[in-house]
């Protein structure tokens, strides 16, 4: 009994420490999704808030519940929504690949740089991340517009004689996405690369492998879990990105994020926006699971070496 009395505070404090964040997240992170689901099954209405509740009438013990699947049906039938999902997917995939292509060599260079260069280089990569995301996307407007930097430069150099339409095109969106999400990929990948066992490379060299071969057969496969995890870290948020397609994209840049915003703010169609959100969430479950899996794989690898 005396022992229980001593152990009790230990058990209690451990549970309390777990419980506090758990309840906060359950209330403010998890529950909202349930509401999204609920409202996606309602009907839009001219009311405040702009949707009809499930429970339509309670009269003489008779409760009428009305579930509206219309939003989901519309989603499937109307080409617009499918096109938006596909557009988001396309942009997310291509930007992720671009981030990998650009970000991997960057992370590698920093990881293999002399020790006293690494911190400054990392700071250089991190600094843009700490300045405003919004403002940096805004900066591209000034660069890409018709009388913007790029066009002025090309015109002055005589490479073109008519300004190129760069702003409000898919190209601008790709530039914006890669620009904004590059640090998200470089930093975790850098962490993975620095934890790789360099003695493996020495062993490979000793056995006759040239540097490129060493990279292809040892470093690359070993860093793959980190690459996939980092890629998902870019892919998942970009699927639902709003600001970049809104500021840099054009009317033909169809992305789910933009569509959700329009449905919500312009059309005041909360149920439709909720339905879109629900579907997007479901679509993102698989990438999320993949990311967790490869994150854990990468950290397990690091622990072993």
């Amino acid at each position, binding site marked *: 009994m005396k022992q229980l009395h001593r152990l009790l505070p230990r058990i209690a*404090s451990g*549970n309390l*420490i*777990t*419980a*506090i*964040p*758990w309840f906060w*997240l*359950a209330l*403010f992170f*998890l*529950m*909202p999704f349930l*509401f999204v689901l609920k*409202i996606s099954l309602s009907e839009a209405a001219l009311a405040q808030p702009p949707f009809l509740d499930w429970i339509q009438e309670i009269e003489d013990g008779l409760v009428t519940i009305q579930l509206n699947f219309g939003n989901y049906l519309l989603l499937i039938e109307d080409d617009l929504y499918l096109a938006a999902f596909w557009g988001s997917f396309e942009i997310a995939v291509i930007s992720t690949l671009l981030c990998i292509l650009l970000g991997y*060599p*960057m992370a*590698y*260079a920093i990881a*293999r*740089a*002399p020790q006293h260069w690494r*911190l400054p280089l990392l*700071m*250089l*990569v991190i600094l*843009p991340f*700490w*300045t*405003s995301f*919004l*403002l*940096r996307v*805004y*900066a591209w*407007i*000034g660069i890409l*517009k018709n009388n*913007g*930097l790029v066009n*002025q430069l090309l015109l002055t150099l005589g490479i073109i004689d008519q300004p190129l339409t760069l702003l409000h095109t898919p190209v601008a969106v790709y530039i914006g996405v890669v*620009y904004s999400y*590059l640090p998200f990929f470089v930093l975790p990948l850098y962490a993975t690369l620095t934890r790789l066992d360099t003695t493996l490379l020495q062993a490979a060299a000793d056995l006759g492998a040239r540097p490129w071969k060493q990279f292809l057969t040892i470093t690359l496969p070993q860093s793959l879990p980190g690459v996939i995890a980092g890629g998902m870290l870019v892919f*998942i*948020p970009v*699927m*639902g990105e*709003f*600001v970049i397609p809104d*500021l840099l994209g054009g009317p033909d840049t169809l992305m789910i*994020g933009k569509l*959700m*915003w329009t449905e*919500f703010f312009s059309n005041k169609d909360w149920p439709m926006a*909720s339905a879109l*959100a629900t579907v*997007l*969430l479901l679509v993102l479950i698989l990438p999320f699971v993949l*990311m967790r899996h490869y994150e854990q794989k990468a950290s397990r690898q690091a622990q072993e070496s």
Partner: protein
Amino acid sequence: MFKRHPFATTVLLLGLAFLYLPMISLVVYSFNESRLVTVWGGFSSKWYSALLDNKPLLSAAWLSIKIGAINACLAVLLGTLAALALVRFSDRRGHKSLAIMSAAPLVIPEIIIGLSLLLLFVSMERLIGWPAGRGQLTILLAHVTFSMAYVSVIVQSRLNHMDRSLEEAALDLGARPVTVFFTITLPMIAPALAAGWLLAFTLSMDDLVVASFVSGPGATTLPMMIYSSVRLGVSPQINALASIIILLVALAVLITGLLLYRRQRQLPHP
């Protein structure tokens, strides 16, 4: 470094140029006399003075700073609790669900977070009357929710790398678990807490999407103001604002870097 990895280093330099040119252009054009931001009309600092007279913008900035600071404090508190729970009490109930719930906000698109939280607040208001209306409070609650996830990741990493035997030694010397936490664990994870605070502050200051959903009349944050301004095109005052922010961040990063560098060098061996 260039000699040993020519390809990677080239890409690194190009990448850094890519990252910095837009910011440099922002700064350069903030001194442009001409209103047409990208057409150079001469050097002028008039946009900075215009900025200082822009009352709505300044009050939006102040609101963002307020919310950012309070959010950072709460996020560090909740995020550290979550990190402790995940690393030190991994055998308790709710561990797995906590792990997922504290990892998800990092990747879930902001638009989903914003929409879902608004729906929550609306429904809660109808059910129990709180939160009454949307504004500063709802923005704060929303920001804390995703900020704590970021803080949790940072603190978890530090906790994982911490030498457990230090805590055992403290226990062995007679310190109760609570004392061990405050005298040993906390000082050792303090850098992570500081980094988490800064990160949470930055995320809050920078958030547009979530704030747009959960905000209400009278609570306009700085990003919201900037957004409504730039939707109409480039604006030189925004450039000026951007330059100030870049300068502040650059200073902060420089100072932090110098401090870290000096600490690294201060490890003498007799």
